[in-house]
């Protein structure tokens, strides 16, 4: 990745982080779009697993700072998702829109489940409802937005390396 592409990539990631804290509160959906996960997956498919895990940790700790009750849960989930996404990128990130969508959906769903379990705030039936109802819906919304972002940045950043 040359300097120009790196600059564009950084801009896109920053833009996604900004959208997470600007557009998401405005939409205020019950199943919200997670722009941080999209940003993490964008990083993960272009970086080695260790770098992706570090990026996930930083994004997670940043998000956790606003939820002190669950501090660390987000970092753990983001780290795991970043590492896993980077490790699995060869399998998923072919030039196939549906696979990319599933990749984002599974990434977000995995993040939510790890977060919920690590957080230990929601338990029992509530945890089940959250994990099998709201999290998949949120993952679907995130996947749709992720596809839009991937299609939008592909002309600028090119296809991810396998």
């Amino acid at each position, binding site marked *: 990745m040359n300097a120009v592409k790196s600059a564009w990539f950084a801009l896109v990631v920053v833009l996604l*982080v*900004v959208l*997470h*804290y*600007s*557009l*998401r*509160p*405005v939409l*205020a959906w019950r199943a919200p779009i997670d722009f941080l996960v999209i940003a993490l997956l964008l990083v993960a498919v272009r970086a080695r697993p260790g770098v992706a895990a570090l990026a996930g940790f930083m994004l997670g*700790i*940043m998000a*956790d*700072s*606003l939820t*002190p009750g669950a*501090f*660390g849960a987000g970092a753990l989930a983001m780290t795991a998702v970043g590492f896993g996404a980077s490790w699995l990128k060869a399998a998923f990130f072919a030039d196939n829109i549906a696979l990319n969508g599933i990749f984002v959906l599974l990434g977000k769903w995995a993040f939510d489940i790890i977060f919920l379990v690590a957080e230990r705030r929601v338990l029992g039936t509530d945890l089940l409802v959250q994990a099998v109802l709201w999290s998949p819906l949120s993952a679907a919304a995130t996947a749709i937005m992720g596809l839009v972002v991937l299609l939008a940045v592909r002309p600028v950043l090119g296809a991810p390396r396998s």
Partner: protein
Amino acid sequence: MRGNAAASIRGTIVAPLAGLQKRSELSRRAFLAHDEAVRVADSVTLRSQRLDGVTQENERLRRLLGLGAAVKWGFVPAEALQGRGLGDEFTVTLTAGRRAGVEPLSPVVAPEGLVGMVERVDDGLSLAITWPHPDFRVSAMALDGSAFGIVTAHLAPGAARYFLELRSVPLRSTLKPGALVVSSGLGGVYPRGIPIGSVVAELKSTEGWARSYLVRPAVRLPDIASVLILRPERVRAGVENVWQLGSATDSATKGVVAAGDSVRAARPDTARRLP
């Protein structure tokens, strides 16, 4: 330790993002509250307008009640339906016709003064020309009888079209601005003493032997909702004591309103039924 770490991150890297989130949530709340706020504001405005309209209408009805009490007999009350469309600017439809005893050429009056004259009569409705109509003519005089003339519509462009003109006033008679002009009773259509308007200024007249004056009408047509149509026998009997005209129209209006109040006071059951 965990709290301190979170606080330090919140205070440094995440601070701008937290601020952004706060502003976004405020924007969302403002957006959601906007429709409700507009709805409430519209509702309040509408209520206040209705209240204002009801107050004005109530005031007008009291005056009309006073006028009816002052005229006492020989009139037909009617509602004025103003079309406000093309061709309807200078006419008004009245909700009383032949069945109610209305006849053509009957004067139409309001508490403030002369509105116009009935031109056509149907069974249930009648059509009246109002004072801005080009065919409107009324023999008029100054309240003190010092000057006589003919009042017509002032056929000028623009807003001046809604003034009247007192024509053919003898050169020896001068009128000061504010002088009240009333019907003179000459001609037999309009009885003597109905307020028409007040003099604004003298006009440059093409008639070398007479003066012309610009007259501000006593009746504002947009305010007209209820009127009285004078029957021929009442015209013949005269209405000179109805508008207790002093030096200004206000006193006449006050007299009419006072009559309305006295009628209401005399019939408390009627007063209770008023809105």
